[in-house]
């Protein structure tokens, strides 16, 4: 393994581009540009030297890489679930169906550095013995879907995909698949149903996709950022990656910063960076205002008031200790003027709208929650509504096939936990605490 001056890679206050390493180069998405940073060298080396999948999985385990889509499951362990030598077709799926509000990192990888994703998926296919792959791309980012199709064509033409890749005897076909507007398809079994040409309704688990995925075949689903990290780990070694991050949170992570922030965008930073530092990197709260709260990982993760998030570090343990979680790394920043009640109303509408309707607690509960918050915002709230919201949310959580039900409860419980006074004020006065007009 190469070790090119990475001893100093761990810095507390800098961006460390791995998935986005071509971002600042001209024609960042082109094959030529990716080749100029050492692209496609790892798949060639692995195929030439016939490195065993077990050895590669070991390297990924050492790296500490965890699934970047939100669940944070260790990637090396996940990839050992699919028996490499079983007969028949196996599938590798990339989940680029980013619909969790505040998340837009996969779009940037596809747009700026698609070939690194393609190489990462090809290495994954080699490790798990898969022949076919799909990249499932969120419906609304159509231009990225088209540009990814172009990158695939380039890779095929150069024989980095297709039959006998680089003449080294390994076959892998990769296709782009576009969604058409359904948040739930970010759930891996709903995504599989969608690839099969059905409504995106999650499946019961078990069986897990590793044994029963697309068309009933073994299938591995990972997030875009996870696959895109693999070529770098293969180039520099698992330990180098682990050393960039902190314990239990190896490497870098892209944090998408949106909302009331001066410079919204994606920041690929070492895990463990203090939130305070990232806030400075992204220009601080907009309009010189004060920070009120941050949702650290998308609405499926609990909101944190300013005092809590300002003490937090951005890694799995750091955010867990602060009472939230990394999720997809989608930091939604809210300034001092934000009304938490109307913000929660919008989030509750989202979960109500996107519930697939399969499980009664989620289908009925999300609508119930939305209607209660709406009546508070309309000035018709009742004192008992706060308890009602908590009660309904708790009864959705843990009673559904997939995690959307749990996710829908998270903002309700956490917004009320930290900002109960605002809810009480709204119910009592029929208007927001932030509403300064008398």
């Amino acid at each position, binding site marked *: 393994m190469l070790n090119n001056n990475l001893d100093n890679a761990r810095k507390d206050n800098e961006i460390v581009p791995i998935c986005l390493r071509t971002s600042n180069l001209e024609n960042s998405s082109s094959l030529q540009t990716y080749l100029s940073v050492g692209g496609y060298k790892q798949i060639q080396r692995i195929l030439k030297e016939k490195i065993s999948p077990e050895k590669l999985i070991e390297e990924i385990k050492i790296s500490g890489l965890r699934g970047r889509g939100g669940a944070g499951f260790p990637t090396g362990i996940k990839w050992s679930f699919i028996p490499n030598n079983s007969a028949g077709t196996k599938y590798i799926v990339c989940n680029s169906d980013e619909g969790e509000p505040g*998340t837009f990192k996969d779009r940037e990888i596809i747009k700026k550095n698609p070939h690194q994703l393609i190489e990462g998926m090809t290495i994954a296919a080699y490790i798990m013995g898969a022949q076919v792959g799909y990249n499932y791309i*969120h419906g609304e*980012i159509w231009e990225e879907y088209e540009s990814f199709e172009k990158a695939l064509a380039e890779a095929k033409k150069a024989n980095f995909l297709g039959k006998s890749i680089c003449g080294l005897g390994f076959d892998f076909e990769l296709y782009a698949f576009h969604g*058409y507007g*359904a948040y739930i398809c970010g759930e891996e079994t709903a995504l599989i149903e969608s690839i099969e*040409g059905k409504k995106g309704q999650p499946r019961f688990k078990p069986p897990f996709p590793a044994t029963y995925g697309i068309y009933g075949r073994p299938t591995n689903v990972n997030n875009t950022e996870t696959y895109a990290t693999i070529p770098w780990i293969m180039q520099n070694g698992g330990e180098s990656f682990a050393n960039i991050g902190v314990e239990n949170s190896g490497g870098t992570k892209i944090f998408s910063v*949106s909302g009331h922030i001066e410079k*919204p965008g994606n920041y690929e930073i070492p895990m463990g960076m203090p939130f305070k530092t990232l806030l400075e990197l992204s220009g601080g709260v907009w309009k010189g205002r004060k920070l009120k709260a941050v949702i650290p990982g998308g609405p499926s993760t609990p909101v944190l008031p300013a005092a809590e998030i300002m003490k937090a570090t951005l890694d799995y343990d750091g955010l867990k200790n602060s009472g939230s979680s990394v999720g997809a790394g989608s930091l939604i920043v809210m300034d001092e003027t934000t009304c938490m009640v109307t*913000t929660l109303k*919008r989030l509750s509408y989202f979960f109500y709208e996107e519930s697939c309707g399969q499980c009664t607690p989620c289908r009925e509960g999300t609508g119930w929650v939305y209607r209660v918050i709406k009546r508070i915002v309309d000035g018709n709230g009742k004192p008992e509504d706060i308890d009602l919201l908590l009660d309904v949310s708790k009864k959705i959580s843990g009673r559904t096939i997939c995690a959307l039900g749990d996710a829908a409860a998270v903002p309700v419980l956490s917004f009320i936990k930290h900002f109960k006074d605002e809810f009480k004020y709204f119910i009592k006065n029929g208007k927001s605490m932030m509403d300064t007009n008398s």
Partner: protein
Amino acid sequence: MLTKITRKKIDSELKKFPVDQKQSAIIAALQIIQTENGFLTDELIAFAADYLAMPKIAAMEVATFYNMFELKPAGKYKISVCTNISCALREADDIVCHLRKKLNIDFNEITKDSKFSLKESECMGACGGAPLMTINNHKMYEFLTPQKVDQILEELD
């Protein structure tokens, strides 16, 4: 009913899947047909189902499940505005108000000349560019201001 070009486009999508799994191309097929026709009729959905050798009801389930499909006539330019949290925090409401006033229609309505229709959208996965809108599903516009919206609409014939 399906033009040659439409069939050709669907056929090229079919190449992505095993020959006995044509149904996998239904989202793509409906997207291709909608892009050509502006919206999906029961008849068009049935044609797509036949073309992919799948039950009509299964194609109808897909057409009604994914919210970028239109089952009623839409404007020549369908404007979808994201109003989810990151866009809302960056004043997407102002964009919606501006569009409502300018076009004199509400969400899910079409202008009298059938040129524009307006839709509220869920998160588009591009929140760094909030506030956002798409036109006819496939073209995205970021960092919107009322002035920028005026400029974009003026350039559409």
